[in-house]
């Protein structure tokens, strides 16, 4: 009986490592977005302003989170830029007249609220954040 804590400990450690390796950011979309998955390339193109449509031709509208852990992880996982580089890219688009800055919201709850009520909206939140009323897109 005294030997059980060690395997349990290692089991918990393995679980913890696995959960850390698994992304803590999920992509959410309004129910009007027919796709159930999105490629990393599409995700990068949408959130850097290079494209406004998914591969199925449907227009989507990105929404951003303000600075924070979820924002940093999203940028690291799917955009490959720091927050300053990400903003510089959008500033190039905005101040050259080639597009508008995406809406930026203060909290994950606000992102969920906006995405759930805005046709075509797509955003990102932490995996643990409540997300009633939106669909989750699998990143492939």
């Amino acid at each position, binding site marked *: 009986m005294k030997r059980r804590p060690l395997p349990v400990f290692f089991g918990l450690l393995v679980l913890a490592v696995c959960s850390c390796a698994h992304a803590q950011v999920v992509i959410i979309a309004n129910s009007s977005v027919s796709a159930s998955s999105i490629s990393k390339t599409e995700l990068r193109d949408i959130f850097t302003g290079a*494209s406004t*449509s998914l591969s199925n*031709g449907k*227009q989507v509208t990105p929404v951003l989170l303000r600075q924070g852990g979820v924002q940093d992880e999203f940028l690291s996982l799917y955009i490959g830029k720091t927050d300053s580089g990400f903003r*510089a890219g959008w500033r*190039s688009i905005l*101040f050259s007249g080639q597009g*508008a*800055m995406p809406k930026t919201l203060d909290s994950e709850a606000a992102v969920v609220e906006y995405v759930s009520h805005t046709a075509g909206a797509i955003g990102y939140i932490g995996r643990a954040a409540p997300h009633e009323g939106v669909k989750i897109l699998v990143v492939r």
Partner: protein
Amino acid sequence: MRDDARDKERDVKRLPIAAAALLALLFPGADCSWGQSMDDLNLQVHGYATQGFIYSTNNNWNTTNSTDGSAAWMEAVVNVTAQPQPKLSIGVQARYFLLGTYGNQIKLDFAQGDYKVNEYFGFRVGKVKTPAGLLNETQDIDPAQLWILLPQSIYSVAGRDSNLAHLGGVVYGTLALGKSLGKVEYRAFGGERVIDTADGGLVRFTDQGFQMPTGLSGPVYGGRLDWKTPLSGLMVGASEESDNPSGNVTRGTFQGTVSGDPFSTSHVFARYERDKLMVAGEYRRGTTNDIIQLTGLPPVYAYIDQRSFYGMASYKISEKLSGGLYYSSSLDRKAAYTSARYQKDWALTGRYDFNPFLYAKFEEHFVDGTETGYSITDNAGGLKPNSRMTLLKIGVSF
């Protein structure tokens, strides 16, 4: 005249303080977050302001007293964009700009309506930025750039106002060629180009005693193609532009007109970005044959065959610090054999982002030749063949 210029410089140094105060008044409580948003029209207000300093050896640069050190270099930009529908956006951008004795007024960068039908086709009309060359549309966006000065061989700050935008429209779209061929982005434009009477691009006339009291204007058209290759991060492109400006000219008591062949400009460029590294290069050739006809005098012909290129590289050293280097070269094959015929420039730069809204830049230039940015008017003692420039800039954006 030089003391008057200095007095004017001192007077206008107060203006950026006024510009900053104006911004604060317009946007009270602005917390340097991502602009202010009004939900009904998705109305957003963004902007930025910069303050620069320049010191140069041997030659004064672009109407500044840079050989004594000059802080007469500032700008403030306000952008208001509404997006009432996902496909429709309306934007206005105004800029206050001062460089030496040039500018010191608020001008319209662009004012346009943009409708994107789908990924394949969209259009914008109004006063719109001109998609010619790799960096023309973004050359004035200081917070988005690593560099204080883009390669002046192609993106001269003195001629920026005139080259940046035109009155008319742009059509644009993206065509996917498949996974193995990448994508092609196209942009075609047309309308009217207006060149201000004080534009730096007219220095080649003013240095010979000609004045364009009402500036120049005329039709402009062209297009740009960008191929986003299957190699991730690599883009290759080209653009072509034809301008045909004309206008009135004076020289002393004589009056007349300036006209001639269209100014044709061809660009070829490439950029590669991967992780923290960016490498880019561009070649431009601009040619024209201008004719200046003053009443009662034989015509004066001004031929230009300017060939320019640059190669640049930048690296993100850390989250807050970036550095870069470029070599820029320009040669007017039709010009007389003086230092004004060519310009070669090695530039070394660094940028530090204190936070997402505040940044500072340092840049050193080693310049051989005086083709761009150096005028006899600003250098009464004559132009020296080379100079070194030290530039500093601080900027804030929201």
